[in-house]
C-alpha cells in the first residue's frame, strides 16, 4: 500500500559509528527503512542491538561522541540534515514526538501533570491560556484518564505507572504529530497495564492516522501492534517484512530463535512423586511493614497475609503476581532475609520462622537464593572465584575444597575456567546470572528460591538460563521456588503455580490446570493480559536446543 505514496519517513544507508573502544565498530550499519503515514513499524532487537540509536538519530539527540557517519534521514520528503538546531526543535514535539520507557523519569516530579502538558503547548507558541487549558483537559480525557479536571492538578508521584505513561502519551499527542516514536513504552509496566497501554496506542494511531515507530525487545508486543517488523541484531538489519510474514514465517535463523524464545513450551508433565517428602512449608505466614512516621503516624502495610505454601522434593513451584503483590517479600521471608511476624516456616521439617540469624547460619546451606539483578547481586570488588567460595567458606569447608567446588561449578554453569580470577564486571548479564547460580549451588542446597532471576535478561539469554536451571535441578535434585511476574516463564518451568495478589495466594494448582481452567477472577485477568504474551506460534525446539 505504501508504494504509490511518498513515505512519511525514509532512512537510507544510515551508519552511526561507535567510539574505538566499543565492542563493535558501528551502532547502526547501513540501516534503511521507510514508514508510510498511518503505519506502525516495530523495531525489534535485544539490548545493545542499536534500536534506540535510530530514535535518537532521528530527533538529533545522539549522545556526544556518536554522530551520523553517512546516510540520510528524510521526513516528509525533507532531508533532516538541512535543518538547524532551531528547526529541529520546531520539529520535535510538534511533528515528531516521543514516548519513553520509564514514565517516572520522563516527567518532572515537581510540576503537576497539567502544568507539564501546558508547558509543551506554550513552548510551541500556543499563547491563549484558555485554549491551552481546554486542550490539556481534552488530551487527558483522550488518553483515557479518569476525571481530567481533577487529575491535571495531580503530581507524577500520585499516579500509577500506567497513568503516568498515559500522561506522557498525552504530552506527546499535544500537537497531533505525524510520527510518534515509542521507545519500549510498556516494558516498565505490569502485563495488565501493558495490554491497556498497547490498546490505547493502537486506538490513537487508527484515530489520528498517525505513523508509529515502535521500539521493543518483546515479540508479544510486536504481535499486538505492528503492521511491519524490522529485526535488528548488533546494528545490522536481519529481516524486514509485514508483521504476519515475520511472525509466522520468519526467514532468518536469528528471528526464528527470538520467536522460539518467547513461545511458552509447557514442561512435559513430570512423574511427580506424590509421596515425595515436603522440603519447604509455610503455614499462615504473615508479614507487615510498619511505617516509621514521625511519632503518631503509624501506617502499616500488610505485605503477606495468612499464606500457605508447600514444596515437595524435586518440584518447581511458580509464584506469579504483579509488582506490589508481595511475591518478593515472600521470597525473602522463605530464605529468612526477613522475619515473618506470624505463622510458621519449616525448612526440611525444622521450624525456622522465629530463629535468630545466629542460629540460622549453620542451616543456611539447605536453602539458597538467586537474585534478580545480575549487576547488583555480585560484589564488584571480588573476583568470581572469591564470590563463589564465599558460601562454602562461611559453612566451614576448607579453602582447597571450596576452590575445587568453585572451579567445578564454573564448568557446570557453562563458564570458562579462566573466569575464576576475573572480576564480575567483565561479564555480560547472562554470564553474571550464571555466576549467581554457581554461588548459590556452592553450598549444595536442597532448595533454591529464584526471585525474578531472568527478568533483567534478553529473551534468548532467558531461555539459556532457564534451560540451565532445569538441567541443574535434575542433576542436583533441587526443589525450586520460582518467583516471576511473567506467566510465560512460569509456564515453561513450573510444575505448579501459585498466583499472588495483595499479599495473599488467590489460587494455586498444577500449571496445565491453572492455564486451562483458572478459578479466580484475578488469575483470569492475568491470563487474559498475557494472552497477547502467549503467542501460539509453532515452536521449533531443535533451534532452541542448538543454542
Amino acid at each position: 500500500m505504501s508504494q504509490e505514496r511518498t513515505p512519511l519517513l525514509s532512512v537510507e544507508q544510515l551508519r552511526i559509528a561507535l567510539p574505538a573502544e566499543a565492542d563493535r565498530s558501528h551502532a547502526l550499519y547501513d540501516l534503511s527503512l521507510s514508514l508510510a503515514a498511518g503505519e506502525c513499524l516495530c523495531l525489534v532487537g535485544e539490548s545493545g542491538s542499536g534500536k534506540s540509536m535510530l530514535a535518537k538519530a532521528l530527533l538529533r539527540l545522539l549522545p556526544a561522541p556518536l554522530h551520523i557517519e553517512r546516510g540520510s534521514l528524510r521526513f516528509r520528503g525533507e532531508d533532516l540534515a538541512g535543518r538547524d538546531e532551531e528547526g529541529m526543535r520546531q520539529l520535535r514535539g510538534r511533528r515528531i514526538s516521543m514516548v519513553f520507557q520509564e514514565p517516572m523519569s520522563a516527567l518532572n516530579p515537581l510540576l503537576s501533570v497539567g502544568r507539564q502538558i501546558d508547558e509543551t503547548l506554550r513552548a510551541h507558541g500556543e499563547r491563549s491560556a484558555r485554549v491551552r487549558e481546554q486542550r490539556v483537559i481534552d488530551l487527558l480525557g483522550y488518553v483515557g484518564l479518569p476525571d481530567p479536571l481533577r487529575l491535571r492538578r495531580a503530581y507524577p508521584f500520585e499516579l500509577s505507572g500506567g497513568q503516568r505513561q498515559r500522561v506522557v502519551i498525552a504530552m506527546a499527542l499535544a500537537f497531533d504529530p505525524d510520527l510518534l516514536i515509542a521507545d519500549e513504552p510498556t516494558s516498565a509496566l505490569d502485563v495488565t497495564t501493558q495490554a491497556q497501554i498497547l490498546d490505547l496506542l493502537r486506538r490513537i494511531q487508527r484515530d489520528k492516522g498517525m505513523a508509529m515507530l515502535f521500539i521493543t525487545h518483546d515479540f508479544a508486543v510486536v504481535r499486538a501492534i505492528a503492521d511491519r517488523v524490522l529485526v535488528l541484531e548488533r546494528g545490522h538489519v536481519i529481516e524486514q517484512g509485514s508483521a504476519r510474514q515475520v511472525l509466522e514465517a520468519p526467514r532468518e535463523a536469528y528471528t526464528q530463535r527470538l520467536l522460539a524464545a518467547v513461545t511458552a513450551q509447557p514442561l512435559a508433565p513430570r512423574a511427580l512423586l506424590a509421596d515425595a517428602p515436603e522440603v519447604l512449608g509455610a503455614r499462615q505466614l504473615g508479614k507487615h511493614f510498619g511505617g516509621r512516621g514521625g511519632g503518631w503516624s503509624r501506617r502499616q502495610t500488610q505485605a503477606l497475609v495468612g499464606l500457605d505454601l508447600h514444596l515437595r522434593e524435586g518440584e518447581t513451584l511458580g509464584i506469579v503476581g504483579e509488582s506490589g503483590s508481595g511475591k518478593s517479600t515472600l521470597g525473602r521471608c522463605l530464605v529468612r532475609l526477613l522475619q515473618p511476624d506470624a505463622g510458621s516456616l519449616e525448612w526440611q521439617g525444622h521450624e525456622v520462622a522465629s530463629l535468630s540469624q545466629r542460629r540460622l547460619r549453620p542451616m543456611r546451606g539447605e536453602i539458597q537464593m538467586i537474585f534478580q539483578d545480575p549487576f547488583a547481586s555480585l560484589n564488584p570488588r571480588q573476583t568470581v572465584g572469591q564470590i563463589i567460595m564465599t558460601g562454602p567458606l562461611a559453612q566451614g569447608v576448607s579453602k582447597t575444597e571450596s576452590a575445587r567446588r568453585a572451579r567445578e561449578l564454573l564448568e557446570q554453569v557453562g563458564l570458562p575456567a579462566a573466569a575464576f580470577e576475573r572480576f564480575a564486571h567483565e561479564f555480560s548479564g547472562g554470564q553474571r546470572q550464571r555466576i549467581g547460580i554457581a554461588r548459590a549451588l556452592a553450598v549444595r542446597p536442597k532448595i533454591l528460591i529464584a526471585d525474578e532471576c531472568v527478568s533483567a535478561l534478553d529473551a534468548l539469554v532467558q531461555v539459556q538460563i532457564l534451560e540451565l536451571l532445569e538441567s541443574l535441578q535434575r542433576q542436583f535434585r533441587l526443589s525450586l521456588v520460582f518467583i516471576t511476574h511473567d506467566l510465560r516463564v512460569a509456564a515453561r518451568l513450573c510444575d505448579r503455580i501459585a498466583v499472588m495478589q495483595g499479599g495473599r495466594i488467590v489460587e494455586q494448582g498444577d500449571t496445565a490446570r491453572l492455564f486451562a481452567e483458572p478459578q479466580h477472577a484475578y488469575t483470569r485477568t492475568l491470563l487474559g493480559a498475557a494472552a497477547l504474551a502467549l503467542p501460539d506460534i509453532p515452536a521449533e525446539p531443535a533451534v532452541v536446543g542448538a543454542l
Partner: protein
Amino acid sequence: MNEVSVIRRFLAQPSAVIGAGFLLLLSLLALAAPWLTNSAPWEMNTTPLLAPFQDPAHWLGSDMLGRDLGSGLLYGARVSLAVAAVSSLATLLVGAMVGAVAGYFGGWLDGVLMRIAEFFQIIPQLVLAVILVAVLEPSLGSIILAITLVTWPAVARLVRGEFLSLRQREFVQAAQVLGQSPLAIITRQILPNALAPLLVTLTFVAATAILTEAALAFLGLGDPDAMSWGYMINASRGLLREAWWMSLLPGLAILLCVLAVNRVGEGLRVAFEPARRQGANP
C-alpha cells in the same frame, strides 16, 4: 573497577600529582630535619631578626631570639604531618567502627550511637578542641585526642550512610543467605565498597587536623616541647611590621600543606568516581 585504572586517572590530574609530590617531599624533608639543619629549632645561635637570604648559614632568617627559621619550619612540618597522619588514622578507626555498627545493625544501637555523634557535632569544633586540650594539659597526645574527638562524627555518619545503602544491595543479602557472619560481611563485602568515599573524606580530615593543630598552637595550647608552625606565627605576631617573614613563612607552609592535602583528596575523588558509577552499571 580495578586499582590500575584508578591510579591512572589519579596520575592524569596535574594538581593532584603536584600535591602528592609536595607532601612526599615535605615528609622526606621533615624526616631528614636533623641532618639538613645545623641547629635544633629552639637553639638561639645567630643574630636575632635576621632577614632571609642574608646569612648563608641561616638562609631563611631568624626570629627575635636568634632561632633559625628554616630549622623551625622543618621541625614544624614533623609536628603538622604527624598530627595529620595519626589523628586521621584514629578518626578512621573510631568513625568506621561506630558508623559500621550503626549502619549494619540499625535499630536502637544506631539511634544511641548517632545521638552521641550529634552531641559532638553541635559544639563548634575548635571550641571543643580548645577546651579538651586545656583540660588535658597541652601535649601531642592530647592534641591528637582532641582532633579525633571533634572529627569522628563526620566520618561515622558517612560510613553509616554508605553501610545503609550497601546493606540493601543484593550481594550483601546473598552473603547473608550464604551464612557469612556479620563481621565477615562488614569487612569483606561492605567495607571494600565503601572505601573510596572514606579515603576521600579522610584526606579532608587530615587537612582539618593540620589547621586545628596550628590554631591550637597559635592559641598557646601546642605541645611545649615541639616546635610547630602555629607556635611560630604566634611568636611573631607582635613583629608583623618589623619582621614580616617570621609569620609569612610558617603561614605559607600551612597554606601549601593544606592545599596539597586538599588537592590529593580532590584527585582521589575524581579518580574513584567513574569507577563507582561503573560498578553500579557498567
